[in-house]
């Protein structure tokens, strides 16, 4: 049986030598050194480009941050659609009848397999042609192109989250609801979903963070969001290091704000449920 060299006890070289032979291990320390070294010396960093104390720097910062609204708006609308669409896709997927289950499975497997960027191109450049041939004139601008793509792409994942959450509620709950006369929609609305939502919320929040980050792709179809703004500024200022660093920090702030909000929401619902 072939053995992995590192699991072979006869061959333990000195640790430093082993590390040196694996370049991937150096990735983190080296990049950290570069980053910190860059901060310490003024030769490779030019913070003036986004220094809010100077008029030009302040203009640049305002320009970069002005993409925040579009990023938030696109992400929020896409997430709202995805949360709704995911439920619509998930419910038939829970049916006992395999022919009702099938379309839901196909949708999830199909949508899940499409990378975001090709889907964005297809929706932005291709979908208007499809719609036109069907006699529908709906011009897709970058804003709606991004929303449609993000919402559909994400809905496959939210559907799976709903499915897992609903399946985790004991079958006896559905049976009890049936015996007090509730129909399917009432059972979901008053009995199953209120219980499932507490378990669904954390992974759903994860998906929202995912949408916020993926919205950066919308820059390639010309959406004026955070990443697009950064790209445009880099082209005029030639300071990619500083500008992209700020861009990353902008996403960090956004995601941390969402996490904090969700943490609060979870606590609120969790304490509601206790007892």
């Amino acid at each position, binding site marked *: 049986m072939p053995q992995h060299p590192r699991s072979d006890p006869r061959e333990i070289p000195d640790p430093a030598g082993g590390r040196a032979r694996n370049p991937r291990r150096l990735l983190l320390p080296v990049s950290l050194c570069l980053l910190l070294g860059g901060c310490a010396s003024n030769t490779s960093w030019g913070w003036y480009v986004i220094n809010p104390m100077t008029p030009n720097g302040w203009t640049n910062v305002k320009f970069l941050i002005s993409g925040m609204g579009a990023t938030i708006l696109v992400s929020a609308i896409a997430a709202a659609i995805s949360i709704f669409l995911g439920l619509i896709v998930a419910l038939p997927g829970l049916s006992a009848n395999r022919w009702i289950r099938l379309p839901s499975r196909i949708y999830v497997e199909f949508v899940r397999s499409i990378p975001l960027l090709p889907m964005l191109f297809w929706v932005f450049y291709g979908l208007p042609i499809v719609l036109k041939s069907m006699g529908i004139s709906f011009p897709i601008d970058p804003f709606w192109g991004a929303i449609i793509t993000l919402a559909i792409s994400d809905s496959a994942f939210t559907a799976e989250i709903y499915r897992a959450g609903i399946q985790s509620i004991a079958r006896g709950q559905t049976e009890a609801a049936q015996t*007090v006369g*509730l*129909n399917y929609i009432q059972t979901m609305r*008053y009995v199953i979903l209120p219980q499932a939502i507490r378990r669904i919320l954390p992974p759903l929040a994860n998906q929202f963070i995912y949408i916020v980050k993926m919205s950066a792709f919308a820059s390639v179809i010309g959406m004026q969001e955070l990443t697009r703004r950064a790209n445009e500024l880099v082209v005029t200022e030639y300071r990619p290091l500083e500008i992209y660093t700020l861009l990353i920090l902008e996403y960090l702030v956004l995601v941390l704000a969402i996490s904090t909000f969700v943490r609060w929401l979870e606590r609120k619902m969790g304490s509601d449920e206790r007892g």
Partner: protein
Amino acid sequence: MTGPAIEMAGVNKWFGDFHVLRDISLTVGQGEKVVICGPSGSGKSTVVRCINRLEAHQTGTIRVDGIELTDSAASIRAIRSEVGMVFQQFNLFPHLTVLENLMLGPVKARGLGRREAEARARHYLDRVRIPEQADKRPGQLSGGQQQRVAIARSLCMEPKVMLFDEPTSALDPEMISEVLEVMTGLARDGMTMVVVTHEMGFARRVADSMIFMDAGEIVETGPPEIFFSAPRSDRCRKFLSQILHH
């Protein structure tokens, strides 16, 4: 209505290849109390679950109050509105208060006004003798209290028939009697009841007729005086000796 409350004739059911119910035929008269017993896996719970369509039977007929139970949603709805059910695991809704548990069915399924539904809920909570627990969550109650809430929840739908699927099997011993007392009271008031249970003392006191099931079929039926003193079949005698002398 003068016909029988429940009529099952030649009912068969399979779970895949497993023949769970074999030619089940039984009649439950209006106001009659029937106790079903038998070893685990004998199909006794399945019989009860077929009566309100938590499980679908494959052949034979089931009638409740003259309505035949078919695949049609209308017949299922009609029958479920006449049949209350109490589960072994209570199956209360944990996210709702006791009062909300009792009001959900009447308000959402029957369209009863909230005030009327609340009055009804409080009435039945009185009847199961826990009016003071109305605003608590199920998780704050003992098992016996939870099961009494579950009984009250069924009664709020004002059913003609009550089904009990091992209602005391999940309870600690000291809580069994409080649930059985409520059930005995219900029986005294004339409710038609089908009870799957191993509580033979309750069966002796309350049952009009006993049914013993084994391996998916009804092996023996009869009034409790004869059933307990002179069981005809070996299987029934063996089962009774096991659960009565342990």
